[in-house]
């Protein structure tokens, strides 16, 4: 239950916000403010890493996410919340409230194209043109804590402690082992660098496991900071379920054999639950299985078990994270702060369907290969998920996680940029409600949090100019005064690795590299076709032209530089040719109808007469 008496309401916060308008810039220059809480809510911002759209139970998933599902019951879920196709890019917008091409992550720092090097907005780190929400909240009387993945810069002036977090326990890079061995994904920095309160962490404890460690630290920071009456802003940036799929030993078999059925069946079950929950329409036009992926029914049972094991690990990782989030909630309840805490839960991008392990490991004879040999060469079926392994669940399962959308992380199709969003806490109206009207963006979170805290975004910060936010506050919507912070004229834009998109209302134009795209613009109506399967550009050329004009505006406003190299430029050669797809070709001769159990018997050598 929300105890409204603890929080005077968002209108009161708005009043505080208005009263501080003229002070904002000046206060930002000054030292951190301490003082009474003035009714400001705590803020708990939780980000999962590579979590798929439909993985949570409250979004149709079969994974046990009872804590987040409970949060959804207390708060509001949103169907049309957008992030960027990859993590650091999203995080730059999440903390700055403006477009990634302005905030310094026009491209992922690791993948800047030659013509992007040195360009403003392509620094590869969160640049000084923006001020973080943490800095602003800290300056306005909040304790600011971070535990988890940063991925926005490694240098002393780029790390969380320098960008507004009083206390932090941070993984500075994009990912690596979730265990104490702490290897980094990139061979260039073999050990993943962590900082604690701005200082390098020399060695991780032996029992380190990412999700638990980040939870422990979050609780520790809140516990050590409470008592002075200041509210807190805690940013929990989990690295789960980003690959490598690592799971504590006693959770390894939590989903044993749950996914042996195969990806098609699980995806269909998810779509059915999504219909029941109202996440998708009854007649949803879901994306087809990616053309280069096989039907799960064509795989032998053992192959399904092997593929299913990866999804088992992923599911266990997600549930473990959910369980840890529950620990934080329980702690907040114990200290009486839960009802005064606004909780926002998102994922940073679409589920990971790319073969990152292969990209990291490189070719025989390379340093990447050497790095892989030293750290994650083991791949035995029963070893996966443990230290020394690097399991990923691949495109087969990523398309399940992103049901009903098309493709996955890295692409600007809906499968790369749609994320679950749950908001709960004081002042949030409509417990258990599903909002399908609002089109929201990760850039909106900073203006929302600032408004909740009564903080004005400054035009300068510590003597430097900072760019204005592009996001729109959700406060009016959360209070139930509006359905969406955006009007029908508002639009959103994306560009990463050369893939690009614009959404305005139900319409979206999309440009994707071949063969997953056409290498040209396509037009989709997302209300009718969330799977982006039916290109309407020939039918509605004027709409396409209109949206392309918005794209040009997006490029100009944000200084977008389309890279002259892209990780996806070779996709056409790497993937098989895309051929026309016919519903019943090749003919399957009733194989689809063979029950899984029967198939298992056949493959075991029984019923030989049936072969």
């Amino acid at each position, binding site marked *: 239950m929300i105890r409204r008496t603890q929080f005077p309401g968002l209108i009161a916060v708005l009043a505080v916000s208005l009263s501080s308008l003229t002070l904002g810039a000046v206060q930002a220059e000054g030292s951190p403010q301490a003082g009474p809480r003035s009714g400001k809510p705590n803020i708990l911002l939780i980000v999962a890493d590579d979590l798929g759209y439909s993985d949570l139970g409250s979004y149709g998933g079969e994974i046990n996410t009872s804590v987040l599902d409970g949060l959804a019951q207390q708060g509001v879920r949103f169907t049309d919340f957008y992030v960027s196709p990859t993590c650091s890019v999203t995080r730059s917008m999440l903390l700055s409230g403006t477009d990634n091409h302005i905030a310094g992550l026009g491209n992922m720092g690791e993948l800047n194209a030659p013509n992007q090097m040195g360009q403003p907005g392509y620094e590869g780190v969160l640049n000084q043109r923006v001020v973080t929400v943490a800095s602003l909240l800290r300056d306005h009387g909040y304790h600011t804590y971070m535990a988890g993945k940063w991925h926005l810069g490694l240098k002393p002036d780029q790390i969380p402690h320098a960008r507004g977090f009083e206390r932090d326990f941070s993984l500075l890079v994009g990912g690596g082992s979730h265990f104490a061995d702490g290897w980094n994904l990139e061979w260039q920095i073999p050990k993943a660098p962590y900082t604690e309160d701005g200082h390098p962490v020399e060695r991780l404890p032996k029992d380190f496991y990412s999700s638990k460690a980040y939870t422990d630290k979050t609780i520790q920071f809140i516990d050590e900071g409470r008592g002075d009456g200041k509210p807190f802003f805690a940013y929990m940036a989990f690295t789960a379920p980003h690959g490598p799929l690592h799971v504590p030993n006693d959770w390894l078999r939590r989903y044993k054999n749950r996914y042996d059925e195969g990806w098609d069946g699980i995806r269909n079950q998810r779509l059915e639950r999504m219909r029941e929950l109202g996440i998708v329409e009854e007649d949803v036009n879901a994306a087809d299985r990616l053309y280069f992926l096989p039907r799960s029914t064509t*795989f032998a049972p*053992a192959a399904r078990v*092997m593929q299913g094991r990866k999804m088992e690990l992923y599911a266990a990782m997600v549930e473990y994270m959910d369980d840890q989030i529950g620990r934080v909630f329980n702690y907040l309840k114990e200290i009486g702060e839960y009802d005064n805490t606004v909780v926002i839960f998102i994922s940073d991008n679409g589920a990971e369907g790319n073969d990152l392990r292969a990209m990291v490991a490189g070719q025989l004879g390379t340093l990447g290969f050497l790095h892989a040999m030293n750290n994650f060469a*083991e791949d035995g079926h*029963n070893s996966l998920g443990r230290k020394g392994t690097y399991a990923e669940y691949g495109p087969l399962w990523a398309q399940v996680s992103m049901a009903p959308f098309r493709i996955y992380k890295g692409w600007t199709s809906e499968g790369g940029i749609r994320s679950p969003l749950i908001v709960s806490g004081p002042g949030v109206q409509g417990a258990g409600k599903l909002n399908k009207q609002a089109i929201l963006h990760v850039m909106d979170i900073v203006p929302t949090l600032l408004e909740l805290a009564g903080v004005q975004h400054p035009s300068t910060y510590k003597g430097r100019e900072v760019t204005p936010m592009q996001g729109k506050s959700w406060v009016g919507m959360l209070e139930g005064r509006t359905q969406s912070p955006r009007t029908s004229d508002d639009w959103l834009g994306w560009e990463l690795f050369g893939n690009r998109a614009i959404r305005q209302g139900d319409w979206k134009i999309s440009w994707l590299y071949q063969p997953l795209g056409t290498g040209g613009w396509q037009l989709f109506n997302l209300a009718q076709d969330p799977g982006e399967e039916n290109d309407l550009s020939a039918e509605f050329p004027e709409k396409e032209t209109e949206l392309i004009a918005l794209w040009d505006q997006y490029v100009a406003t944000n200084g977008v530089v389309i890279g002259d190299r892209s990780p996806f430029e070779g996709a056409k050669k790497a993937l098989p040719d895309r051929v026309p797809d016919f519903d019943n070709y090749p003919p399957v001769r009733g194989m689809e109808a063979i029950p899984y159990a029967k198939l298992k018997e056949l493959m075991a050598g029984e019923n030989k007469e049936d072969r």
Partner: protein
Amino acid sequence: MRQANGTTRSLASLVIAAIIVSFGVPALATDDGARAYWSARAGTNAFSFQYLRWDIDATGSLQFDPGAYIYPGADTEASVFVLSWARHLTLFNRASSLAVNLVGGNVDVDFNSGLVPAPFLPGGVLPGATLSQSSSGYADPNVQLVVNLVGTPPLESNVDLLNYEPSWTVDAAVMLAVPIGEYDADKLVNLGLNRWYGRLALPIKYHFGVFSPGYMSSFELTPSVWLFAENDDFVGQKLDNDPLWQLEAHLTHDFTRGFFGSLDALYRGGFQSEINSTEVGDELDIGNVGFTLNFQITGNVTMRTGYSSNVFGDDNLDNSILRMQFVYAWNRDSENAKKLQEGH
């Protein structure tokens, strides 16, 4: 298609790896060996050729069983081969195996006949003389059936293998030897025992570490009892033996995917001899400690070598055993998968 191809490769590897089985050969006076009772997929066959070299120097002990070749003052050298075929199957809805073992070789024994009671000396041999005897040919073949009792479900398919992550397992093993081996009633030294005998064993394993090639470890304990019928023509006498109690232990560990080692221990006791219903000699009391190294040479072939020697028990009975074993294992699916992989 990287995923799909990767799965196919991994699957084939799994099938091949899963048939690399070692199995024990119950032979008197030696142990079954490390990982002798590990289960494999039903339908897996294995041929094993094992060479054993015994050196026994019995200065004071007195045992009257040719199978053990322990005589007072005897210096025994034996070279024995064991040719085996085993097949893994499902019985009583449990993982099981059936093995047939053909044993043969050569044994040479030098006695100080002064320590051998006169009634058992061959005709014409005077007490106090040095006597040399040998035997060569086939010993008694045996058949062993192993059925899991706890911890191992039927391993009928690759799916079953993939889902198999044992912790505690308990098997029941029954062996029966058929007395058709080389036997000459006028000699003290024979390869055959001229009597039916068998063994009941209860192999117990605890698997720890990750049950994945390269990471597997186990502690294995096999209590067993050998039971012997009467030899009604032991140099013209009747020879009976009490049960022989045996406790075998192994601590095994994978060093790499294709290489494991084991610390081995074997204790044997009991086996009191009675000749014409009169107890003769001592009970057996001998404990060996040794090691085993097991290498996977190819997808189908493994080689094992090991050595053990007595370090506790009866001081008067020195013995050492050197073992070399080759196992060729296969099953239909793995062979077919290889054909497909190799493009034939």
